[in-house]
C-alpha cells in the first residue's frame, strides 16, 4: 500500500541494469581493454511517455508497463530486413542478468537434459524446471522522467540502421487504468489488465537513416523512445468491453544515438582517469544503488548516465585489486553535458572481509541482512556512525547474508564492489535488516578487521529487536472461495521510513486473524505508526489497489529489546470499494511528489508528469473509499537522496462512493449486499 513512487522511484529503476554489464562481460573476457580487437560497446536505454488522456478513446493510466525481452540491431538499410529475422547480421542485446536470468548466448542445455533423462518436452508432461524468458517491465510513467537502462553489450563494430524492440508477444505488458470517466460503462478501474498487441508476432521496428555507429573499441549510446500510441496511425486500439479484459495497443519506437563524447540529450556523461582502479561504479548519491559499472582500460573510464531534466546526483566509487578506494560525492549529471572527475587511487593492502549476522534474542542466523561499508565524502567531515546516516556518507561496498547468516553471500559480487578486497583503512560498517535495530559500527581494516559494535570487537553482528502481536479484522467476513491476505506495516512515527511488513491470512468465513512482527526495540525507535491493507482480488486475480479501507494506528510504543509490546493493536478494515483521484499542481520539478495521508499517516505518494511530457504537472491515485477525507499534500526533495518534506498546506479530499451494480458482475470486494462496486473518478483536483 505504501506507494512512495516519487521521482526517486523513476531514477531507481535504472539501478539494476548496468551493474550486470560488467558481469555479463566477464565470461567472454571483453573488458574495455579488450574491446579494441572485438568491436565496440552499445549502451541501450529506453524512454517514452504515457499517452495523453483523450476521452472517450484513451483513458489515463496509473501504470502502463511493457514487457521488454531484447533489442536487435542490423546494419542493413533494406527495409525488408525486418521480414528476415534469420539474417545472420542481427545482433541481439537481451535484458541484463539479474534484471532477468536469461541465458543470453549460453547453450540451452535443458533440451539436452530432457533427452538424456528421457523427458518429453513437447508433450503434456514436459517435466521439471528450466530457465525461461526473462523480461524487463518498463513502466511508461516511470521512464518519462529519466530513461531506463536496458543493457550494455559488446557488438561488432558497424553502423546499424535497422533497430527492433522485442516485446513478449504473448504477455506484452500490464495496464492499470484509473476509474473510467463514463459511469455508464460500468468498467472497473484501478485493476490490472493485460496488454495485447495488435500484431503480437511483430517486433517494434524503426530505421535510422544515419545509423547507429558503433566504432571499433568505442562506446555508443542508443536511446529508444517507446510511443504507446502511434499518432495518426492507431490512436488507441481499444479498451475492453468487460472489466479486467485486454487493452489493445499498437506501440511504435523511434531512436536517437550518438558516439561518445557526444551525448544523447536524455543522458549525461562522466569521464576521467582512475589509475590504480579496475572498475568505476556510479551509484545514486548516498543510496548505494548502483546504476552502472565501467570496467577500465588504460586507466580511463567513460560512464554515460541517465539524467532527469533537472539533473541527477551520483556518487562515483573506483576500486581495484591492490588500491584504496577513490570516490566522489554528489556529482551532478546533466542531460547532454560531459564532465570530468578524476578518481586516481593509491596502492593499499587489502583483506577479504567476512562475518556473520544473528538475532540477539534467539541466536538465529539472519538471511538477507545488508552490510554496507561507508566513508564520509571528501571534505565533509560527516560522522557515518550516526543514525540516521548523514547524506554526506558514500557507500563504498555492500554485501548480503546467506541462509547461514554469513556474509558476503556468494552471489553478492553482483552488488557494487566485492567484500573480497577491502583496502586498509577506517570505515563505518552499516548493518540493516527489516524489523531489526540498525547498527552503524566503526570498522578498522589493517591486516584483519575489527568492528567497535561487533560481537567481541569482531565484525560479526547481533541485531536487537522487539515483537508486536496484534489482530486484523475484516468486515464483512471473508467470502468464499478464497482467503484474503492482509499486509501489516510498521513505520517510524510521522515519517515514510518503514521498519517492517508482515503478512497474515484471514480464512474464508472468518473476520479476523492474528499477526506477529518484529520491529526495532524502544531504545532505537520511540514510536511507530502502523497500518494494514487487504490484498484484494478481482475476478480471481490479485490486485495492488485494495477495495477495503486502510486501518491506521498512530503513535504505537514498541517494547524493550527482546520484549513484546504491552498493547495488542487491532487493525480493522471494511469493504468500501475504491476510486481514483486525478489532479495537477502548478508548481513542480523533478523533486516534486504528492502524498496521500489518512489521520496523519502517509499512505502513498506519486510523482508528477515532467515538463515536456504528455501529462506534465499531472498526478493520479487509486485509493479505497473512506468515510473520512484523505489529505493531499505537495512534497519537495532535493535529488536524489533527501527525504521529501511538505511544502504547502494539505488539501482535504473525500472520495466519491463507488457505483453499485447488480449481478452478474465482479467486484474488488464484497459488501454482503450481493451488488458489485464499480469505482468512480474525481478529476480536476488542484494541489497548491
Amino acid at each position, binding site marked *: 500500500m505504501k506507494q512512495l513512487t516519487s521521482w526517486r522511484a523513476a531514477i531507481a529503476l535504472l539501478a539494476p541494469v548496468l551493474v550486470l554489464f560488467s558481469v555479463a562481460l566477464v565470461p567472454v573476457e571483453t573488458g574495455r581493454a579488450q574491446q579494441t580487437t572485438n568491436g565496440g560497446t552499445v549502451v541501450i536505454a529506453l524512454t517514452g511517455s504515457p499517452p495523453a488522456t483523450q476521452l472517450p478513446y484513451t483513458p489515463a493510466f496509473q501504470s502502463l508497463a511493457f514487457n521488454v525481452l531484447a533489442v536487435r540491431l542490423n546494419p542493413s538499410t533494406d527495409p525488408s530486413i525486418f521480414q528476415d529475422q534469420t539474417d545472420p547480421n542481427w545482433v541481439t542485446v537481451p535484458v541484463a542478468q539479474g534484471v532477468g536470468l536469461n541465458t543470453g548466448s549460453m547453450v540451452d542445455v535443458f533440451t539436452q537434459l530432457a533427452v538424456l533423462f528421457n523427458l518429453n518436452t513437447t508433450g503434456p508432461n514436459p517435466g521439471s524446471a528450466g530457465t525461461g524468458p526473462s523480461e524487463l517491465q518498463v513502466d511508461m510513467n516511470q521512464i518519462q522522467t529519466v530513461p531506463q537502462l536496458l543493457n550494455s553489450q559488446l557488438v561488432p563494430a558497424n553502423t546499424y540502421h535497422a533497430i527492433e524492440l522485442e516485446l513478449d508477444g504473448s504477455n506484452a505488458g500490464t495496464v492499470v487504468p484509473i476509474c473510467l470517466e463514463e459511469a455508464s460503462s460500468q468498467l472497473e478501474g484501478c485493476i490490472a489488465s493485460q496488454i495485447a498487441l495488435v500484431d503480437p508476432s511483430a517486433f517494434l521496428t524503426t530505421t535510422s537513416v544515419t545509423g547507429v555507429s558503433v566504432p571499433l573499441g568505442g562506446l555508443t549510446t542508443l536511446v529508444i523512445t517507446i510511443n504507446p500510441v502511434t499518432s495518426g496511425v492507431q490512436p488507441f486500439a481499444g479498451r475492453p468491453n468487460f472489466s479486467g479484459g485486454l487493452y489493445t495497443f499498437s506501440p511504435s519506437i523511434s531512436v536517437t544515438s550518438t558516439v561518445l563524447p557526444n551525448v544523447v540529450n536524455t543522458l549525461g556523461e562522466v569521464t576521467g582517469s582512475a589509475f590504480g582502479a579496475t572498475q568505476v561504479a556510479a551509484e545514486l548519491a548516498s543510496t548505494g544503488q548502483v546504476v552502472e559499472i565501467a570496467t577500465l582500460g588504460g586507466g580511463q573510464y567513460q560512464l554515460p548516465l541517465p539524467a532527469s531534466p533537472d539533473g541527477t546526483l551520483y556518487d562515483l566509487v573506483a576500486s581495484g585489486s591492490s588500491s584504496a578506494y577513490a570516490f566522489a560525492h554528489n556529482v551532478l549529471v546533466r542531460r547532454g553535458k560531459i564532465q570530468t572527475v578524476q578518481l586516481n587511487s593509491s596502492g593499499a593492502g587489502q583483506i577479504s572481509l567476512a562475518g556473520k549476522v544473528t538475532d540477539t534474542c534467539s541466536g538465529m542466523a539472519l538471511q538477507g541482512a545488508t552490510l554496507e561499508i561507508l566513508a564520509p565524502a571528501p571534505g565533509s567531515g560527516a560522522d557515518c556512525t550516526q543514525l540516521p546516516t548523514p547524506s554526506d556518507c558514500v557507500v563504498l561496498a555492500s554485501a548480503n547474508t546467506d*541462509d547461514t547468516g554469513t556474509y558476503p553471500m556468494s552471489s553478492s559480487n553482483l552488488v557494487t564492489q566485492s567484500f573480497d578486497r577491502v583496502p586498509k583503512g577506517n570505515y563505518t560498517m552499516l548493518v540493516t535488516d527489516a524489523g531489526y535495530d540498525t547498527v552503524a559500527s566503526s570498522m578498522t581494516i589493517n591486516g584483519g578487521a575489527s568492528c567497535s559494535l561487533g560481537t567481541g570487537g569482531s565484525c560479526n553482528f547481533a541485531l536487537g529487536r522487539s515483537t508486536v502481536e496484534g489482530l486484523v479484522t475484516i468486515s464483512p467476513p471473508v467470502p468464499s472461495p478464497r482467503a484474503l491476505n492482509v499486509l501489516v506495516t510498521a513505520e517510524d512515527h510521522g515519517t515514510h521510513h518503514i521498519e517492517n511488513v508482515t503478512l497474515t491470512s484471514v480464512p474464508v468465513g472468518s473476520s479476523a486473524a492474528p499477526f506477529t512482527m518484529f520491529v526495532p526495540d524502544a531504545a532505537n525507535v520511540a514510536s511507530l505508526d502502523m497500518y494494514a491493507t487487504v490484498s484484494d482480488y478481482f475476478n480471481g486475480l490479485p490486485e495492488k489497489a485494495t477495495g477495503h479501507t486502510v486501518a491506521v494506528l498512530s503513535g504505537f510504543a514498541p517494547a524493550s529489546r527482546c520484549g513484546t509490546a504491552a498493547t495488542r493493536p487491532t487493525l480493522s478494515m471494511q469493504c468500501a470499494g475504491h476510486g481514483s483521484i486525478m489532479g495537477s499542481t502548478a508548481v513542480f520539478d523533478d523533486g516534486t511528489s504528492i502524498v496521500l495521508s489518512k489521520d496523519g499517516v502517509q499512505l502513498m505518494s506519486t510523482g508528477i508528469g515532467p515538463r515536456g511530457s504528455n501529462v506534465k504537472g499531472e498526478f493520479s491515485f487509486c485509493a479505497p473509499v473512506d468515510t473520512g477525507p484523505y489529505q493531499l499534500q505537495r512534497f519537495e526533495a532535493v535529488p536524489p537522496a533527501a527525504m521529501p518534506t511538505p511544502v504547502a498546506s494539505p488539501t482535504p479530499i473525500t472520495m466519491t462512493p463507488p457505483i453499485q451494480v447488480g449481478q452478474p458482475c465482479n467486484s474488488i470486494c464484497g459488501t454482503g449486499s450481493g451488488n458489485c462496486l464499480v469505482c468512480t473518478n474525481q478529476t480536476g483536483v488542484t494541489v497548491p
Partner: protein
Amino acid sequence: MKGNLKLKWSSALRHLALAMLTFACAACGGAFGTANPTAPGNTSQVPAENSLWVLGTPGTPFQALVTDSSQSWSFRGVVPEAVVIVNNAPGTQMTVTKLTNNSALMTTQLFNGVTLVAEASTNDPFGTTVVQTFGGLTGVAPHANPDIRIFMKGPASGLLTGLVEDLSLSFVFEARAPTLFLFEHPDARVDAIINSVDTAGTIIADIQSNGVVAVQASGGPRLLIKFP
C-alpha cells in the same frame, strides 16, 4: 576464421563435457541408495515444476510466502534468486515483499517448466507483488513439515543443471545460482546432483531441514549433496 574454429571446438568440447556429466549424473541416480539406479526417478511421468524468479536491483532483500494447494513455505532472500518447488501440488501463489525503504526494482516471474505464467513488478518501498497460477488458490496451505530445502548459492549467476531427487521421484533442472529448491513431501531422503555448465566458479550448496542447515557442500564442476 581461426577464432571461429576455436569457438566451434570450444563449443563442441563443452557439449561433450556436458553430455558426459549428465550421463554420469543419470548413471549415478542410485548412488545414494535411491530406488532409481539407472533411470532417475519417474521424471518423465511428472508435470513441469513451478518456479519463481525474484529479479531486479541486485542486493535487494525480500521476504516471500510461497504456497500451493498442499504446503507453504516462507523465507527471506536477496535479488536475484530463483525458487523451485519440487514435486509441487497443483496451483501456486507467491507473495513477495521488498524489505528496503528505497525504490529499487523488484520483479517476480512465475514459471511452469519454461513457460512464463505470471509477472509483476514494484519499486515501492517495501512494495509487494503477488503472482499465481491460473485460477489461484483458496488459501495458504499449512507450512511444510518436514521443511526440506536445497539452496544453491554459488557461483554467482552461474548456469547450473542437474537432478534433485528423493527415494521416489527425481526432477531435472536448469537454473542459475542462487536457486532455492523447496521439496514438497520428500520421501525419506533427498539428494541433488549439480553440474556447472559454464564453469563460472565453485558450486556452493546446502540442505536445510526445518530451518537448520544440515549439510553444506562445495566443489565443482559437479557437486553431490544428500540428506540425511
